[in-house]
């Protein structure tokens, strides 16, 4: 079978696709943190002397909203740098 | 190369590939797609953060701390659908149950992809629970003394909003562990 596709190449190819798809999760924190920043600016406008509290709450909420974007980043990094699927395939091959 | 030709070509190369490699390849794509659910909590928690900042501005003296605490509590609950999809992605990546299952290669590969696709439903609960967290942070900002009642109502509502996320998790787990499609 001359066009036998090398299994390892296929896994690498699909890992690249998977890493790319994982980063789509970045849309969420983008929209959410933008909304938080907007509301934060509006809040500081309404109550300037409470500015430090407002900024603290806004930053805290924005950082909490960051986490799912970080999850996507971590899965993408795992797929790119430390690909467990390749090592699993290698184990299966030489078993 | 009409549509029939394309399909033949696609199915064709799937046949002469080692089925284990096909399953692992589609698992990679499935794990990537599962993470798309991160959109939900991102938007929801961002909304909660904005509303909490607004609540602090409306009632800075005694409303600041309760609003922040309620926002954090609500955001922590809104986090669960993001955690579910992370768990499924990690299962698919590190403890892939489909590889050493006996069955047709294409079916197992499609199951892995399906598990990832079903987790995209996490967007819904993420946004919904974030909305609930935001509105309750705003409510606590207005009436800090009613904090415990507001928090209880918020948790109840968020739990109900979580159900569709749990359905998606169940379907994904069935696809991964119970080989229904013999």
């Amino acid at each position, binding site marked *: 079978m001359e066009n036998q596709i090398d299994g390892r190449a296929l896994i690498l190819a699909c890992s690249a696709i998977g890493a790319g798809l994982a980063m789509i999760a970045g849309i969420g924190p983008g929209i959410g943190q933008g909304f938080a920043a907007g509301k934060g600016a509006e809040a500081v406008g309404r109550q300037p002397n409470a500015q430090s509290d407002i900024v603290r709450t806004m930053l805290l909420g924005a950082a909490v909203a960051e986490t799912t974007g970080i999850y996507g980043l971590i899965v993408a990094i795992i797929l790119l740098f430390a690909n467990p699927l390749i090592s699993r395939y290698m184990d299966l091959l030489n078993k | 190369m009409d549509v029939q030709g394309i399909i033949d070509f696609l199915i064709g190369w799937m046949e002469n590939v080692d089925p284990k490699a096909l399953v692992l390849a589609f698992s990679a794509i499935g794990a990537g797609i599962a993470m798309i659910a991160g959109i939900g909590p991102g938007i929801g928690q961002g909304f909660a953060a904005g509303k909490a900042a607004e609540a602090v501005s409306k009632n800075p003296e005694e409303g600041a701390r309760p609003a922040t605490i309620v926002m954090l509590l609500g955001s922590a609950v809104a986090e*669960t659908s993001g955690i579910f999809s992370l768990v499924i992605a990690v299962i698919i990546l590190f403890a892939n149950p489909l590889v050493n299952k006996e069955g047709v290669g294409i079916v197992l590969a499609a199951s892995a992809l399906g598990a990832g696709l079903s987790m995209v439903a996490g967007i819904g609960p993420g946004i919904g629970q974030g909305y609930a967290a935001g509105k309750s942070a705003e409510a606590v900002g207005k009436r800090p003394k009613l904090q415990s009642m507001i928090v209880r109502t918020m948790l109840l509502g968020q739990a109900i909003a979580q159900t569709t996320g749990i359905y998606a998790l169940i379907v994904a787990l069935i696809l991964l562990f119970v080989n229904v499609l013999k």
Partner: protein
Amino acid sequence: MDFSNHVVTTVNLFGFELWITESMVNSWIIMGILVLAAVIIRIILQRRTLQAVPTGLQNVVETIVEMLDNFTVSTMGEKHRNFGPFYGGMFIYILLCNLSGLLPGPKYVESAGYIQFMRPPTADVAVTLALALITFFMTQGYGIKAKGVKNWAKGLTEPMWPLTPLNVIGELANPVSLSFRLFGNILGGTIIMGLYYNLPWFALVGIPAALHIYFDIFAGVLQAFIFVMLSMTFVSSAME
């Protein structure tokens, strides 16, 4: 040019092989710096008589301690003031870990970059998960201490009993999200800095300083602040 945690040496401890990794050595270095600074400050302040109006070193140290105490009181409330020193110490440790990307570090691997920066220990999920588990067990421990085991268990079935699994998952999700938030941000910063330093020399003129300011200083300080503030909030709301 890889970003993994290189094993510096392996030590076998009664038959069990222990891998001493880069982030362990770096965190020992940071702990050494902190302990040394504390001891030196203690010796200097002990010799001098403490004035009511502080000047010089005493002034600096007092403002830091006051700032950390106010930070704790404003987050956890007046009656939990005694958490101040603990969370102050944790904040300083995490802050220094995050900022350690700025210090020139020991070179464990022949990486192509010109300058070998220290790899921040918090860019390793083991370190951040350990810190997050401290918070998790403190939350549950103080919750049980404050409310008693029965109320604590009843608290898990918050509005209605069928929601117990969801509450348990919510509790378990806290350490995961805490540790991945700190780990993801710092690792992301380390990777971007590492990639950037492999560009040819003309790209390294002004821009890395700006990248360092954003990734190492802003993100480092913010993530340390967020981690400690969330830990304090979880512990104090568990005790309410």
